[in-house]
């Protein structure tokens, strides 16, 4: 619930309007920082009684370096404060990372897409985070930067090693997500993103599924399957990937893949959907992805 309009919450006591990564990381090194960019998650959560945030608010919206999209021959690099609208408006990403663009397209509402950043979607560590699912399929790396006392040092964490629990990740209090990067998937990758909710806009996924692969000589290779909202973090379906890898897509194999997927995910019952329904959606989305892959 939002606070009454006449009441100013007191979550934050200090403010740093950072204009460089250096400045933001030095502020974070003090150890009591909360990073904000678009604010679409934080400004809702900051008033929730069970959440605590560092009282030093560090705004990274004005760090131009973090707003860049770099399309390299080998690697794609998205600055952490690239918004969902930036991803959709980029002329190249539609071909390179269609599933990521589809996730951005199904993300919340136009106003929220204008504010919400890729780094924020990762940092918030929701099990249902829309953009994270295609990032898992892209083997994305999360670049974390910190001030080590003398200079900025960085480490890359694979997206599938980043999340530890709902709302929790390996991000340390003094670290800033500075970029998300992934290998250029080459031309014409098979890549799909599915998301379910009662209406197209402003939904937290009941289930989301990302699928990517290449088809070489009739066989699937580089199979990646990732799901949101079927466990405590966004997850890869590694057993199902392994079953499909290097295989021809026969009807038997498709059926086996759906059963394997059902075995390896562990959705729960909650207000948005039952475990049974989530299993049903996950199977249906994989079936559709495999059907499309066979046609391509």
């Amino acid at each position, binding site marked *: 619930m939002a606070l009454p309009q006449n009441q100013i919450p007191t979550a*934050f006591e200090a*403010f740093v309007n950072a204009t460089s990564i250096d400045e933001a990381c030095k502020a974070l090194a003090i150890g009591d920082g909360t990073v904000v960019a678009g604010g679409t998650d934080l400004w809702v959560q900051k008033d929730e009684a069970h959440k605590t945030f560092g009282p030093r608010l560090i705004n990274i919206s004005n760090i131009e370096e973090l707003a860049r999209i770099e399309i390299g021959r080998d690697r794609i690099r998205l600055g952490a404060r690239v918004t969902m*609208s930036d991803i959709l408006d980029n002329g190249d990403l539609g071909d390179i990372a269609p599933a990521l663009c589809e996730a951005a397209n199904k993300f*919340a509402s136009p106003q929220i897409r204008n504010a919400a950043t890729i780094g924020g979607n990762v940092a918030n560590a929701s099990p249902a985070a829309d953009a994270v699912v295609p990032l898992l399929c892209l083997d994305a790396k999360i670049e974390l930067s910190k001030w080590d006392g003398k200079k900025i040092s960085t480490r890359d964490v694979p997206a599938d090693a980043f999340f530890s629990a709902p709302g929790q990740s390996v991000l340390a209090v003094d670290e800033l997500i500075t970029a998300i990067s992934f290998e250029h998937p080459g031309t014409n990758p098979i890549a799909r993103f599915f998301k379910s909710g009662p209406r197209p*806009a402003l939904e937290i996924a009941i289930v989301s599924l990302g699928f990517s692969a290449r088809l070489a000589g009739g066989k699937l290779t580089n199979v990646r399957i990732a799901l949101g909202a079927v466990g405590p973090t966004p997850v890869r379906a590694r057993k199902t990937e392994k079953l499909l890898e290097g295989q021809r897509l026969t009807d038997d194999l498709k059926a086996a893949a759906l059963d394997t997927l059902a075995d390896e995910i562990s959705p729960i019952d909650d207000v948005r959907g039952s475990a049974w329904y989530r299993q049903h959606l996950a199977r249906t989305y994989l079936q559709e992805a495999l059907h499309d892959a066979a046609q391509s």
Partner: protein
Amino acid sequence: MPHKVDIAFTLNGRPVAAAVPVSASALQVMNRDFDLTSAKLACGEGECGACTILLDGVSRNSCLTPGVDLDGRDVETVEGLWTGNGMDLLQDAFVEAGAVQCGFCTPGMVMQAKFLLAPGKKLTRDHVLRGLEGNVCRCTGYHKIVDAIVAASGETS
């Protein structure tokens, strides 16, 4: 007393300054510091769009935008559409189409429409429907709102 930060920005075309609490939203800054009440608090969590304003020409939910992040930016609300000579084209279109019932959602609808129209392209009904996905009208007045925005963009479909 909550800690306050001095900010300066352009509000509806004129330079302004304020000292705002770090935890205040842009919506609270509009309402409290500048007596601008067109942007409304309804859901307070980005679902309804009644608080939509333009920040550097881009539509945002002001209830979710940190007030301190207004510093240095160009902010537009419905109050800024009045030119002194009359209403904005969009406002006229809303009146013409009868696109206002209780009026609570209207400023947010108009500002989101302003954002959609900004590139100067003609909008189809589908563009408008998609563009208004983040704005809720509880008088169920969507048809006339869409009519108004399509008309304002010069499209008659």
